[in-house]
Protein backbone atom coordinates (compact mmCIF):
# COMPACT_ATOMS: atom_id res chain seq x y z
CA UNK A 1 0.00 0.00 0.00
CA UNK A 2 1.34 3.42 -0.98
CA UNK A 3 0.85 6.28 1.43
CA UNK A 4 0.55 9.91 0.46
CA UNK A 5 0.68 12.83 2.85
CA UNK A 6 -0.32 16.20 1.49
CA UNK A 7 0.38 19.43 3.37
CA UNK A 8 -0.16 17.94 6.81
CA UNK A 9 -0.01 20.41 9.66
CA UNK A 10 -0.68 19.92 13.32
CA UNK A 11 -0.99 22.35 16.21
CA UNK A 12 -1.63 21.54 19.83
CA UNK A 13 -3.33 24.78 20.83
CA UNK A 14 -0.83 27.43 19.80
CA UNK A 15 2.10 25.03 19.76
CA UNK A 16 3.05 23.99 16.25
CA UNK A 17 3.97 20.34 15.95
CA UNK A 18 4.03 19.75 12.21
CA UNK A 19 4.34 22.24 9.41
CA UNK A 20 3.39 21.37 5.83
CA UNK A 21 4.44 17.73 5.62
CA UNK A 22 4.13 16.36 2.09
CA UNK A 23 5.53 12.97 1.23
CA UNK A 24 4.88 9.78 -0.69
CA UNK A 25 5.73 6.40 0.76
CA UNK A 26 5.91 3.67 -1.84
CA UNK A 27 4.27 0.27 -1.69
CA UNK A 28 6.43 -2.19 0.21
CA UNK A 29 8.96 0.41 1.23
CA UNK A 30 10.91 0.45 4.50
CA UNK A 31 10.49 4.14 5.23
CA UNK A 32 12.13 5.74 8.25
CA UNK A 33 11.14 8.97 9.98
CA UNK A 34 14.14 10.22 11.91
CA UNK A 35 14.75 13.35 13.93
CA UNK A 36 15.57 14.60 17.39
CA UNK A 37 12.89 14.39 20.06
CA UNK A 38 10.16 16.96 19.59
CA UNK A 39 10.63 17.05 15.82
CA UNK A 40 7.14 15.67 15.24
CA UNK A 41 8.01 12.21 13.89
CA UNK A 42 5.78 10.29 16.31
CA UNK A 43 2.98 12.74 15.60
CA UNK A 44 3.17 11.96 11.87
CA UNK A 45 2.95 8.26 12.68
CA UNK A 46 -0.10 8.79 14.89
CA UNK A 47 -1.78 10.93 12.26
CA UNK A 48 -1.20 8.19 9.67
CA UNK A 49 -2.69 5.69 12.14
CA UNK A 50 -5.67 7.98 12.75
CA UNK A 51 -4.99 8.10 16.48
CA UNK A 52 -4.80 11.88 16.40
CA UNK A 53 -6.36 14.16 13.80
CA UNK A 54 -4.29 16.47 11.62
CA UNK A 55 -5.08 20.18 11.89
CA UNK A 56 -5.07 20.39 8.10
CA UNK A 57 -3.87 18.38 5.15
CA UNK A 58 -4.83 14.95 3.87
CA UNK A 59 -3.71 11.33 3.95
CA UNK A 60 -4.23 8.91 1.10
CA UNK A 61 -3.81 5.15 1.15
CA UNK A 62 -3.49 4.05 -2.50
CA UNK A 63 -5.43 7.08 -3.81
CA UNK A 64 -8.16 6.55 -1.22
CA UNK A 65 -8.55 9.48 1.13
CA UNK A 66 -8.46 8.27 4.72
CA UNK A 67 -7.99 11.59 6.50
CA UNK A 68 -11.19 11.12 8.49
CA UNK A 69 -11.29 7.32 8.69
CA UNK A 70 -11.29 5.67 12.13
CA UNK A 71 -8.07 3.88 13.07
CA UNK A 72 -9.68 0.44 12.81
CA UNK A 73 -10.88 1.17 9.27
CA UNK A 74 -7.34 1.90 8.11
CA UNK A 75 -6.31 -1.74 8.44
CA UNK A 76 -2.85 -1.14 9.73
CA UNK A 77 -0.82 -2.53 12.59
CA UNK A 78 1.42 -0.70 14.99
CA UNK A 79 4.35 -1.60 17.21
CA UNK A 80 4.91 0.65 20.20
CA UNK A 81 8.06 1.67 22.04
CA UNK A 82 6.79 0.19 25.31
CA UNK A 83 5.37 -2.81 23.40
CA UNK A 84 1.81 -2.21 24.70
CA UNK A 85 1.30 -5.89 25.41
CA UNK A 86 -1.57 -6.94 27.66
CA UNK A 87 0.14 -8.23 30.81
CA UNK A 88 -2.79 -10.43 31.84
CA UNK A 89 -2.75 -12.44 28.61
CA UNK A 90 -0.27 -15.03 27.41
CA UNK A 91 1.89 -14.40 24.37
CA UNK A 92 -0.45 -16.37 22.11
CA UNK A 93 -3.54 -14.68 23.55
CA UNK A 94 -1.98 -11.28 22.97
CA UNK A 95 -1.42 -12.08 19.31
CA UNK A 96 -4.90 -13.56 18.96
CA UNK A 97 -6.48 -10.54 20.63
CA UNK A 98 -4.96 -8.34 17.93
CA UNK A 99 -6.99 -10.26 15.34
CA UNK A 100 -10.22 -9.39 17.16
CA UNK A 101 -11.39 -6.99 14.45
CA UNK A 102 -10.78 -9.35 11.53
CA UNK A 103 -13.55 -11.87 12.35
CA UNK A 104 -11.56 -14.95 11.38
CA UNK A 105 -12.48 -18.55 12.10
CA UNK A 106 -10.77 -20.10 15.11
CA UNK A 107 -8.70 -22.31 12.81
CA UNK A 108 -7.50 -19.27 10.83
CA UNK A 109 -6.65 -17.45 14.05
CA UNK A 110 -4.69 -20.46 15.28
CA UNK A 111 -2.73 -20.58 12.04
CA UNK A 112 -1.95 -16.86 12.09
CA UNK A 113 -0.80 -16.98 15.71
CA UNK A 114 1.42 -19.99 15.04
CA UNK A 115 2.91 -18.45 11.88
CA UNK A 116 3.61 -15.13 13.54
CA UNK A 117 5.26 -16.79 16.52
CA UNK A 118 7.40 -18.85 14.21
CA UNK A 119 8.54 -15.80 12.26
CA UNK A 120 9.85 -14.15 15.42
CA UNK A 121 11.26 -17.44 16.81
CA UNK A 122 9.01 -17.51 19.87
CA UNK A 123 6.95 -20.66 19.26
CA UNK A 124 8.22 -22.19 22.50
CA UNK A 125 7.07 -19.28 24.62
CA UNK A 126 3.46 -19.08 23.40
CA UNK A 127 2.00 -19.77 26.83
CA UNK A 128 4.19 -17.41 28.83
CA UNK A 129 2.99 -14.10 30.21
CA UNK A 130 4.80 -11.01 28.84
CA UNK A 131 6.28 -10.35 32.28
CA UNK A 132 8.14 -13.65 32.10
CA UNK A 133 9.95 -12.60 28.92
CA UNK A 134 13.02 -10.44 28.36
CA UNK A 135 12.68 -7.01 26.77
CA UNK A 136 13.81 -8.33 23.41
CA UNK A 137 11.33 -11.21 23.54
CA UNK A 138 8.52 -8.84 24.51
CA UNK A 139 9.34 -6.66 21.53
CA UNK A 140 9.28 -9.72 19.29
CA UNK A 141 5.80 -10.54 20.61
CA UNK A 142 4.72 -7.00 19.75
CA UNK A 143 6.11 -7.47 16.24
CA UNK A 144 4.41 -10.87 15.93
CA UNK A 145 1.12 -9.30 16.98
CA UNK A 146 1.50 -6.74 14.20
CA UNK A 147 2.45 -9.17 11.44
CA UNK A 148 -0.26 -11.66 12.42
CA UNK A 149 -2.85 -9.12 11.26
CA UNK A 150 -1.27 -9.32 7.78
CA UNK A 151 -1.84 -5.59 7.47
CA UNK A 152 -0.37 -3.99 4.35
CA UNK A 153 0.94 -1.15 6.46
CA UNK A 154 2.89 -1.55 9.68
CA UNK A 155 3.88 1.43 11.78
CA UNK A 156 6.69 1.17 14.30
CA UNK A 157 7.29 3.83 16.92
CA UNK A 158 10.85 3.61 18.27
CA UNK A 159 10.44 -0.14 18.78
CA UNK A 160 14.05 -0.78 19.72
CA UNK A 161 14.86 2.13 22.00
CA UNK A 162 14.06 0.24 25.21
CA UNK A 163 16.54 -2.51 24.37
CA UNK A 164 20.23 -2.69 25.18
CA UNK A 165 22.78 -1.96 22.47
CA UNK A 166 23.63 -5.51 21.46
CA UNK A 167 20.03 -6.64 21.31
CA UNK A 168 19.16 -3.56 19.29
CA UNK A 169 21.70 -4.51 16.61
CA UNK A 170 20.28 -8.05 16.47
CA UNK A 171 16.68 -6.84 16.29
CA UNK A 172 17.56 -4.38 13.52
CA UNK A 173 18.68 -7.24 11.32
CA UNK A 174 15.66 -9.33 12.24
CA UNK A 175 13.27 -6.52 11.36
CA UNK A 176 14.98 -5.90 8.01
CA UNK A 177 14.78 -9.62 7.20
CA UNK A 178 11.15 -9.73 8.27
CA UNK A 179 10.37 -6.81 5.99
CA UNK A 180 12.15 -8.51 3.09
CA UNK A 181 10.10 -11.66 3.67
CA UNK A 182 6.70 -9.99 4.10
CA UNK A 183 7.13 -6.95 1.81
CA UNK A 184 4.60 -4.84 3.66
CA UNK A 185 4.89 -1.06 3.70
CA UNK A 186 6.74 -0.25 6.88
CA UNK A 187 6.98 3.20 8.43
CA UNK A 188 9.52 3.29 11.20
CA UNK A 189 10.12 6.13 13.65
CA UNK A 190 13.44 6.53 15.41
CA UNK A 191 15.64 9.24 16.86
CA UNK A 192 18.73 7.15 16.18
CA UNK A 193 20.39 8.03 12.88
CA UNK A 194 22.37 4.77 12.88
CA UNK A 195 19.10 2.84 13.01
CA UNK A 196 17.70 5.00 10.23
CA UNK A 197 20.78 4.56 8.03
CA UNK A 198 21.11 0.82 8.53
CA UNK A 199 17.44 -0.08 8.16
CA UNK A 200 15.72 2.47 5.97
CA UNK A 201 15.31 2.19 2.21
CA UNK A 202 14.33 5.84 2.29
CA UNK A 203 14.58 8.24 5.16
CA UNK A 204 12.71 11.41 6.02
CA UNK A 205 14.76 13.66 8.27
CA UNK A 206 12.65 15.91 10.46
CA UNK A 207 13.61 18.83 12.62
CA UNK A 208 11.77 21.81 13.96
CA UNK A 209 8.36 20.45 12.80
CA UNK A 210 9.51 20.38 9.15
CA UNK A 211 10.88 17.95 6.61
CA UNK A 212 14.58 18.65 6.25
CA UNK A 213 15.29 16.13 3.52
CA UNK A 214 14.00 12.86 2.11
CA UNK A 215 16.31 10.39 0.48
CA UNK A 216 18.12 7.09 0.52
CA UNK A 217 20.73 6.69 3.27
CA UNK A 218 23.59 7.51 0.89
CA UNK A 219 21.81 10.49 -0.67
CA UNK A 220 21.42 11.97 2.78
CA UNK A 221 24.99 11.19 3.70
CA UNK A 222 26.62 12.38 0.48
CA UNK A 223 24.35 15.24 -0.44
CA UNK A 224 22.84 16.77 2.68
CA UNK A 225 20.59 19.64 1.65
CA UNK A 226 21.23 21.65 4.77
CA UNK A 227 23.52 21.94 7.75
CA UNK A 228 21.06 20.12 10.04
CA UNK A 229 20.94 16.97 7.90
CA UNK A 230 24.71 17.18 7.41
CA UNK A 231 25.43 17.09 11.13
CA UNK A 232 22.51 14.83 12.11
CA UNK A 233 23.34 12.01 9.72
CA UNK A 234 26.67 10.30 10.26
CA UNK A 235 28.67 9.29 13.27
CA UNK A 236 30.97 10.83 14.31
CA UNK A 237 29.26 14.06 13.34
CA UNK A 238 30.33 16.12 10.34
CA UNK A 239 32.85 18.83 11.29
CA UNK A 240 31.57 22.35 10.69
CA UNK A 241 33.82 25.39 10.18
CA UNK A 242 33.05 29.03 9.44
CA UNK A 243 35.14 29.82 6.38
CA UNK A 244 35.71 32.60 3.88
CA UNK A 245 35.86 31.78 0.19
CA UNK A 246 37.89 33.83 -2.26
CA UNK A 247 36.71 32.75 -5.71
CA UNK A 248 39.35 34.79 -7.54
CA UNK A 249 42.28 33.34 -5.61
CA UNK A 250 40.55 29.93 -5.49
CA UNK A 251 41.16 29.57 -1.76
CA UNK A 252 39.16 28.76 1.35
CA UNK A 253 40.33 30.46 4.53
CA UNK A 254 39.82 28.23 7.56
CA UNK A 255 39.34 29.60 11.09
CA UNK A 256 42.80 28.20 11.92
CA UNK A 257 46.43 29.20 11.55
CA UNK A 258 49.27 27.52 9.70
CA UNK A 259 52.72 26.83 11.10
CA UNK A 260 53.76 30.44 10.63
CA UNK A 261 50.73 31.79 12.43
CA UNK A 262 49.02 33.00 9.26
CA UNK A 263 45.39 32.12 8.42
CA UNK A 264 45.27 28.56 7.11
CA UNK A 265 44.22 28.21 3.47
CA UNK A 266 43.07 25.23 1.44
CA UNK A 267 42.31 25.12 -2.31
CA UNK A 268 38.76 25.87 -3.49
CA UNK A 269 37.00 23.60 -5.96
CA UNK A 270 35.27 25.36 -8.83
CA UNK A 271 31.82 26.85 -8.68
CA UNK A 272 31.55 28.47 -5.27
CA UNK A 273 31.20 32.27 -5.27
CA UNK A 274 33.12 34.42 -2.79
CA UNK A 275 31.63 34.89 0.63
CA UNK A 276 31.34 33.46 4.12
CA UNK A 277 30.07 29.90 4.51
CA UNK A 278 29.67 27.05 6.91
CA UNK A 279 31.97 24.36 5.59
CA UNK A 280 31.15 20.76 6.48
CA UNK A 281 33.79 18.04 6.25
CA UNK A 282 33.11 14.42 7.18
CA UNK A 283 35.55 13.19 9.85
CA UNK A 284 36.63 10.29 7.62
CA UNK A 285 37.61 12.74 4.87
CA UNK A 286 40.04 14.49 7.20
CA UNK A 287 43.46 12.88 6.84
CA UNK A 288 45.86 12.91 9.71
CA UNK A 289 49.64 12.41 9.63
CA UNK A 290 52.54 12.95 11.96
CA UNK A 291 54.60 14.87 9.37
CA UNK A 292 53.52 17.62 7.01
CA UNK A 293 53.34 16.50 3.38
CA UNK A 294 51.81 19.48 1.59
CA UNK A 295 51.72 23.26 1.86
CA UNK A 296 47.98 23.07 2.65
CA UNK A 297 48.44 20.86 5.70
CA UNK A 298 47.23 22.39 8.95
CA UNK A 299 49.16 21.76 12.18
CA UNK A 300 47.00 20.60 15.09
CA UNK A 301 47.40 19.51 18.68
CA UNK A 302 45.93 16.13 19.54
CA UNK A 303 43.23 16.46 22.21
CA UNK A 304 42.09 12.87 22.47
CA UNK A 305 42.57 9.57 20.70
CA UNK A 306 39.63 7.18 20.81
CA UNK A 307 41.01 3.88 19.54
CA UNK A 308 38.49 1.46 18.08
CA UNK A 309 41.19 -0.99 17.02
CA UNK A 310 40.34 -1.04 13.34
CA UNK A 311 40.07 2.76 13.30
CA UNK A 312 40.65 5.79 15.48
CA UNK A 313 38.58 8.86 16.20
CA UNK A 314 41.10 11.56 16.92
CA UNK A 315 39.96 14.86 18.38
CA UNK A 316 42.31 17.61 17.25
CA UNK A 317 42.49 21.34 17.78
CA UNK A 318 43.85 24.47 16.12
CA UNK A 319 43.08 27.99 17.35
CA UNK A 320 40.32 26.83 19.68
CA UNK A 321 38.59 25.01 16.82
CA UNK A 322 38.20 21.39 17.81
CA UNK A 323 37.20 18.76 15.29
CA UNK A 324 37.36 15.03 14.66
CA UNK A 325 39.48 13.02 12.28
CA UNK A 326 38.13 9.50 11.78
CA UNK A 327 41.04 7.56 10.35
CA UNK A 328 40.88 3.96 9.21
CA UNK A 329 44.02 2.90 11.04
CA UNK A 330 45.51 2.88 14.51
CA UNK A 331 46.94 6.17 15.68
CA UNK A 332 49.65 6.52 18.36
CA UNK A 333 47.74 7.27 21.54
CA UNK A 334 50.55 9.41 22.95
CA UNK A 335 50.91 11.68 19.90
CA UNK A 336 50.73 15.36 20.87
CA UNK A 337 51.03 17.05 17.50
CA UNK A 338 49.94 16.11 14.02
CA UNK A 339 49.07 17.56 10.60
CA UNK A 340 45.65 17.59 9.02
CA UNK A 341 45.08 17.33 5.28
CA UNK A 342 41.64 18.57 4.28
CA UNK A 343 39.97 17.01 1.25
CA UNK A 344 40.06 18.93 -2.03
CA UNK A 345 37.33 17.13 -4.02
CA UNK A 346 34.14 19.14 -4.40
CA UNK A 347 32.05 16.19 -3.21
CA UNK A 348 33.83 16.14 0.14
CA UNK A 349 33.46 19.85 0.89
CA UNK A 350 29.90 20.72 1.88
CA UNK A 351 29.17 24.45 1.78
CA UNK A 352 26.15 25.84 3.62
CA UNK A 353 24.83 29.38 3.62
CA UNK A 354 25.59 30.79 7.08
CA UNK A 355 22.12 32.33 7.56
CA UNK A 356 19.74 29.71 6.14
CA UNK A 357 21.93 26.62 6.56
CA UNK A 358 20.99 25.56 3.02
CA UNK A 359 23.54 23.68 0.95
CA UNK A 360 25.42 25.72 -1.67
CA UNK A 361 26.31 23.15 -4.29
CA UNK A 362 29.12 23.48 -6.74
CA UNK A 363 28.52 22.76 -10.39
CA UNK A 364 30.45 19.53 -10.14
CA UNK A 365 28.40 18.22 -7.26
CA UNK A 366 25.16 19.22 -8.94
CA UNK A 367 26.20 17.03 -11.85
CA UNK A 368 26.29 14.13 -9.44
CA UNK A 369 30.03 13.56 -9.47
CA UNK A 370 31.19 11.96 -6.26
CA UNK A 371 34.29 10.21 -5.10
CA UNK A 372 32.38 7.17 -3.94
CA UNK A 373 31.71 3.98 -5.86
CA UNK A 374 28.10 5.00 -6.22
Amino acid at each position, binding site marked *: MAIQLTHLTKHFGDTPVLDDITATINEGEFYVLVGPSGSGKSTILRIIAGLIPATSGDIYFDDKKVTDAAPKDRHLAMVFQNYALLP*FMSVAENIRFGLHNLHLSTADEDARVADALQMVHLSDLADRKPKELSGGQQQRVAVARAIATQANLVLMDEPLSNLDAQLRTEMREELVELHKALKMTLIYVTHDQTEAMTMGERIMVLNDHRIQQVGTPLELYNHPQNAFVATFIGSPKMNMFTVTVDAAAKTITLPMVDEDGRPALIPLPAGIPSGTYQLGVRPEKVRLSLASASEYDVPVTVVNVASLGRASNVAVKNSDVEFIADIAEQFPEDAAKAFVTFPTAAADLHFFAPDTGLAVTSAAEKAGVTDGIA
Partner: protein
Amino acid sequence: MKYAKRTIHYVLLILIALLVMAPLLLGIWASLLPTTDIVAGHFNSLNISLNNYVAAIQTTPVVLYMWNSLVISSLIMVGQLIFCTLAAYAFAFLQFRFKNGIFFAFLITMMLPFEAQIIPNFQTVRALGWLDSYPGLTIPFFTSAFGVFMLRQAFLQVPRELKEYSDLIGLGRLQFLTRIVLPYTRSTIITFVLYTFLTHWNAYLWPLITTFSDAHRPTQVGLKQLQSEDTFNNWGVIMATAIMVLLPTLLILIIGQRYFRKGLNAGGVKG
Protein backbone atom coordinates in the same frame (compact mmCIF):
# COMPACT_ATOMS: atom_id res chain seq x y z
CA MET B 1 23.81 -16.62 65.41
CA LYS B 2 21.52 -16.40 62.42
CA TYR B 3 19.14 -18.92 63.94
CA ALA B 4 19.20 -17.20 67.32
CA LYS B 5 18.17 -13.94 65.70
CA ARG B 6 15.43 -15.62 63.73
CA THR B 7 14.16 -17.40 66.83
CA ILE B 8 13.93 -14.11 68.71
CA HIS B 9 12.02 -12.57 65.81
CA TYR B 10 9.52 -15.40 65.77
CA VAL B 11 9.05 -15.41 69.54
CA LEU B 12 8.36 -11.68 69.44
CA LEU B 13 5.99 -12.05 66.50
CA ILE B 14 4.06 -14.81 68.23
CA LEU B 15 3.80 -12.82 71.45
CA ILE B 16 2.52 -9.74 69.63
CA ALA B 17 0.12 -11.83 67.57
CA LEU B 18 -1.26 -13.40 70.75
CA LEU B 19 -1.66 -9.99 72.32
CA VAL B 20 -3.50 -8.62 69.31
CA MET B 21 -5.63 -11.69 68.86
CA ALA B 22 -6.43 -12.17 72.55
CA PRO B 23 -9.90 -10.56 72.44
CA LEU B 24 -10.78 -12.59 69.36
CA LEU B 25 -9.51 -15.85 70.88
CA LEU B 26 -11.29 -15.06 74.13
CA GLY B 27 -14.46 -14.36 72.18
CA ILE B 28 -14.24 -17.65 70.30
CA TRP B 29 -13.59 -19.49 73.57
CA ALA B 30 -16.47 -17.76 75.30
CA SER B 31 -18.81 -18.59 72.44
CA LEU B 32 -18.21 -22.26 73.23
CA LEU B 33 -18.94 -21.96 76.97
CA PRO B 34 -22.36 -22.04 78.67
CA THR B 35 -23.57 -18.60 79.80
CA THR B 36 -23.56 -19.73 83.44
CA ASP B 37 -19.80 -20.27 83.28
CA ILE B 38 -19.20 -16.92 81.52
CA VAL B 39 -21.26 -14.97 84.04
CA ALA B 40 -19.51 -16.73 86.91
CA GLY B 41 -16.14 -15.90 85.31
CA HIS B 42 -15.16 -19.55 84.89
CA PHE B 43 -13.21 -19.08 81.69
CA ASN B 44 -11.03 -22.06 82.48
CA SER B 45 -14.07 -24.28 82.25
CA LEU B 46 -13.76 -27.17 79.83
CA ASN B 47 -17.51 -27.42 79.47
CA ILE B 48 -17.37 -26.51 75.78
CA SER B 49 -19.94 -27.24 73.08
CA LEU B 50 -21.57 -25.73 70.00
CA ASN B 51 -24.84 -25.34 71.92
CA ASN B 52 -24.60 -21.55 71.81
CA TYR B 53 -24.41 -21.61 68.02
CA VAL B 54 -27.41 -23.91 67.76
CA ALA B 55 -29.32 -21.66 70.15
CA ALA B 56 -28.30 -18.53 68.26
CA ILE B 57 -29.56 -19.92 64.98
CA GLN B 58 -32.77 -21.27 66.52
CA THR B 59 -33.75 -18.47 68.88
CA THR B 60 -32.35 -15.28 67.32
CA PRO B 61 -32.80 -13.75 63.86
CA VAL B 62 -29.03 -13.80 63.28
CA VAL B 63 -29.35 -15.79 60.04
CA LEU B 64 -31.82 -13.22 58.75
CA TYR B 65 -29.46 -10.41 59.78
CA MET B 66 -26.61 -12.06 57.95
CA TRP B 67 -28.76 -12.57 54.88
CA ASN B 68 -29.71 -8.89 54.98
CA SER B 69 -26.09 -7.85 55.33
CA LEU B 70 -25.11 -10.13 52.48
CA VAL B 71 -27.77 -8.66 50.20
CA ILE B 72 -26.97 -5.07 51.18
CA SER B 73 -23.20 -5.42 50.95
CA SER B 74 -23.39 -7.28 47.65
CA LEU B 75 -25.72 -4.75 46.07
CA ILE B 76 -23.50 -1.87 47.19
CA MET B 77 -20.44 -3.73 45.97
CA VAL B 78 -21.90 -4.19 42.50
CA GLY B 79 -23.30 -0.66 42.46
CA GLN B 80 -20.00 0.92 43.40
CA LEU B 81 -18.10 -1.24 40.96
CA ILE B 82 -20.29 0.01 38.13
CA PHE B 83 -20.59 3.67 39.06
CA CYS B 84 -17.11 4.28 40.46
CA THR B 85 -15.54 2.53 37.48
CA LEU B 86 -17.45 4.65 34.99
CA ALA B 87 -16.70 7.89 36.84
CA ALA B 88 -13.04 6.97 37.23
CA TYR B 89 -12.87 6.13 33.53
CA ALA B 90 -14.15 9.58 32.66
CA PHE B 91 -11.63 11.27 34.93
CA ALA B 92 -8.75 9.14 33.71
CA PHE B 93 -9.35 8.87 29.97
CA LEU B 94 -11.78 11.50 28.71
CA GLN B 95 -11.12 15.15 28.07
CA PHE B 96 -13.92 17.51 29.02
CA ARG B 97 -14.38 21.01 30.34
CA PHE B 98 -13.93 21.60 34.07
CA LYS B 99 -12.58 18.07 34.50
CA ASN B 100 -10.16 19.05 37.23
CA GLY B 101 -12.71 21.25 38.97
CA ILE B 102 -15.28 18.47 39.04
CA PHE B 103 -12.73 15.98 40.26
CA PHE B 104 -11.74 18.39 43.01
CA ALA B 105 -15.39 18.68 44.03
CA PHE B 106 -15.50 14.87 44.27
CA LEU B 107 -12.48 14.89 46.53
CA ILE B 108 -13.91 17.56 48.80
CA THR B 109 -16.82 15.28 49.66
CA MET B 110 -14.25 12.87 51.11
CA MET B 111 -13.37 15.47 53.70
CA LEU B 112 -16.97 15.80 54.82
CA PRO B 113 -17.55 13.29 57.65
CA PHE B 114 -20.37 10.85 57.03
CA GLU B 115 -22.06 11.87 60.26
CA ALA B 116 -22.53 15.37 58.84
CA GLN B 117 -24.32 13.97 55.81
CA ILE B 118 -26.69 11.78 57.76
CA ILE B 119 -29.51 14.24 58.34
CA PRO B 120 -29.89 15.43 54.73
CA ASN B 121 -29.50 11.85 53.51
CA PHE B 122 -32.12 10.67 55.99
CA GLN B 123 -34.55 13.35 54.80
CA THR B 124 -33.98 12.41 51.18
CA VAL B 125 -34.46 8.72 51.78
CA ARG B 126 -37.56 9.34 53.90
CA ALA B 127 -39.03 11.57 51.19
CA LEU B 128 -38.48 8.75 48.70
CA GLY B 129 -40.24 6.36 51.04
CA TRP B 130 -37.18 4.14 51.24
CA LEU B 131 -36.85 3.94 55.04
CA ASP B 132 -36.52 0.39 56.34
CA SER B 133 -35.97 -1.07 52.87
CA TYR B 134 -33.15 -2.41 50.74
CA PRO B 135 -33.11 0.63 48.38
CA GLY B 136 -32.73 2.97 51.35
CA LEU B 137 -29.87 0.90 52.69
CA THR B 138 -28.02 0.51 49.41
CA ILE B 139 -28.69 3.21 46.80
CA PRO B 140 -27.20 6.11 48.82
CA PHE B 141 -23.90 4.18 48.75
CA PHE B 142 -23.81 3.30 45.05
CA THR B 143 -20.90 5.62 44.54
CA SER B 144 -18.10 6.89 46.69
CA ALA B 145 -15.54 9.62 46.20
CA PHE B 146 -12.87 7.38 47.66
CA GLY B 147 -13.70 4.65 45.16
CA VAL B 148 -13.61 7.05 42.23
CA PHE B 149 -10.32 8.45 43.45
CA MET B 150 -8.73 5.05 44.02
CA LEU B 151 -9.81 3.69 40.63
CA ARG B 152 -8.84 6.87 38.81
CA GLN B 153 -5.34 6.59 40.24
CA ALA B 154 -5.16 2.98 39.09
CA PHE B 155 -6.53 3.81 35.62
CA LEU B 156 -3.95 6.55 35.20
CA GLN B 157 -1.28 3.85 35.38
CA VAL B 158 -2.64 2.22 32.23
CA PRO B 159 -0.19 3.15 29.45
CA ARG B 160 -1.55 5.55 26.85
CA GLU B 161 -0.39 3.14 24.16
CA LEU B 162 -2.93 0.55 25.30
CA LYS B 163 -5.70 3.02 24.50
CA GLU B 164 -4.12 3.67 21.11
CA TYR B 165 -3.77 -0.05 20.52
CA SER B 166 -7.40 -0.67 21.40
CA ASP B 167 -8.43 2.09 18.97
CA LEU B 168 -6.39 0.41 16.25
CA ILE B 169 -7.98 -2.98 16.72
CA GLY B 170 -11.42 -1.41 16.91
CA LEU B 171 -12.40 -1.73 20.55
CA GLY B 172 -15.09 0.70 21.66
CA ARG B 173 -14.86 2.60 24.94
CA LEU B 174 -16.83 0.06 26.92
CA GLN B 175 -14.78 -2.80 25.47
CA PHE B 176 -11.58 -0.92 26.25
CA LEU B 177 -12.80 -0.54 29.82
CA THR B 178 -13.93 -4.11 30.34
CA ARG B 179 -11.36 -5.99 28.26
CA ILE B 180 -8.23 -3.95 28.90
CA VAL B 181 -8.52 -1.43 31.74
CA LEU B 182 -10.29 -3.64 34.28
CA PRO B 183 -8.03 -6.68 33.81
CA TYR B 184 -4.99 -4.40 33.75
CA THR B 185 -5.92 -2.90 37.12
CA ARG B 186 -7.22 -6.20 38.47
CA SER B 187 -5.55 -6.10 41.87
CA THR B 188 -6.86 -2.61 42.61
CA ILE B 189 -10.34 -3.63 41.47
CA ILE B 190 -10.34 -6.70 43.73
CA THR B 191 -9.08 -4.67 46.66
CA PHE B 192 -11.72 -2.05 46.06
CA VAL B 193 -14.55 -4.57 45.76
CA LEU B 194 -13.56 -6.48 48.91
CA TYR B 195 -12.99 -3.27 50.83
CA THR B 196 -16.43 -2.01 49.83
CA PHE B 197 -18.03 -5.27 50.86
CA LEU B 198 -16.34 -5.23 54.27
CA THR B 199 -17.14 -1.58 54.92
CA HIS B 200 -20.82 -2.18 54.37
CA TRP B 201 -20.88 -5.54 56.11
CA ASN B 202 -19.67 -3.63 59.15
CA ALA B 203 -21.91 -0.57 58.60
CA TYR B 204 -23.65 0.55 61.76
CA LEU B 205 -24.87 4.14 61.97
CA TRP B 206 -26.90 4.38 58.76
CA PRO B 207 -28.73 1.06 59.16
CA LEU B 208 -29.31 1.90 62.83
CA ILE B 209 -31.35 5.00 62.00
CA THR B 210 -33.05 3.77 58.83
CA THR B 211 -34.20 0.27 59.84
CA PHE B 212 -37.10 -0.31 62.20
CA SER B 213 -37.75 -4.02 61.73
CA ASP B 214 -35.82 -7.25 61.55
CA ALA B 215 -36.92 -7.66 57.94
CA HIS B 216 -34.10 -5.47 56.61
CA ARG B 217 -31.85 -5.10 59.63
CA PRO B 218 -28.20 -6.00 58.97
CA THR B 219 -25.82 -7.78 61.32
CA GLN B 220 -24.08 -5.02 63.24
CA VAL B 221 -27.31 -3.34 64.23
CA GLY B 222 -28.87 -6.73 64.87
CA LEU B 223 -26.08 -7.70 67.25
CA LYS B 224 -26.54 -4.54 69.24
CA GLN B 225 -30.25 -5.23 69.24
CA LEU B 226 -29.67 -8.65 70.82
CA GLN B 227 -27.65 -7.14 73.65
CA SER B 228 -30.06 -4.35 74.45
CA GLU B 229 -33.17 -6.50 74.66
CA ASP B 230 -33.92 -6.52 78.42
CA THR B 231 -34.82 -10.14 78.64
CA PHE B 232 -31.82 -11.24 76.69
CA ASN B 233 -28.46 -11.37 78.38
CA ASN B 234 -27.38 -14.77 77.27
CA TRP B 235 -23.70 -13.96 76.74
CA GLY B 236 -22.80 -17.34 75.29
CA VAL B 237 -25.34 -16.89 72.51
CA ILE B 238 -24.29 -13.27 71.95
CA MET B 239 -20.67 -14.33 71.57
CA ALA B 240 -21.69 -17.12 69.17
CA THR B 241 -23.60 -14.67 66.96
CA ALA B 242 -20.72 -12.21 67.10
CA ILE B 243 -18.30 -14.89 65.90
CA MET B 244 -20.66 -15.89 63.11
CA VAL B 245 -20.91 -12.28 61.98
CA LEU B 246 -17.16 -11.97 62.11
CA LEU B 247 -16.44 -15.00 59.93
CA PRO B 248 -17.00 -13.43 56.49
CA THR B 249 -14.69 -10.54 57.43
CA LEU B 250 -11.93 -12.92 58.44
CA LEU B 251 -12.44 -15.02 55.35
CA ILE B 252 -12.22 -12.02 53.02
CA LEU B 253 -9.14 -10.68 54.78
CA ILE B 254 -7.36 -14.01 54.51
CA ILE B 255 -8.28 -14.56 50.86
CA GLY B 256 -7.77 -10.96 49.84
CA GLN B 257 -4.65 -9.94 51.73
CA ARG B 258 -2.42 -10.48 48.70
CA TYR B 259 -4.56 -8.05 46.69
CA PHE B 260 -5.01 -5.58 49.53
CA ARG B 261 -1.28 -5.14 49.72
CA LYS B 262 -0.82 -4.81 45.96
CA GLY B 263 -3.94 -2.75 45.36
CA LEU B 264 -3.43 -0.17 48.04
CA ASN B 265 0.18 0.27 46.97
CA ALA B 266 -0.79 0.56 43.31
CA GLY B 267 -2.84 3.65 44.07
CA GLY B 268 -0.09 5.38 45.94
CA VAL B 269 3.18 4.43 44.32
CA LYS B 270 3.84 5.20 40.70
CA GLY B 271 5.06 2.39 38.45
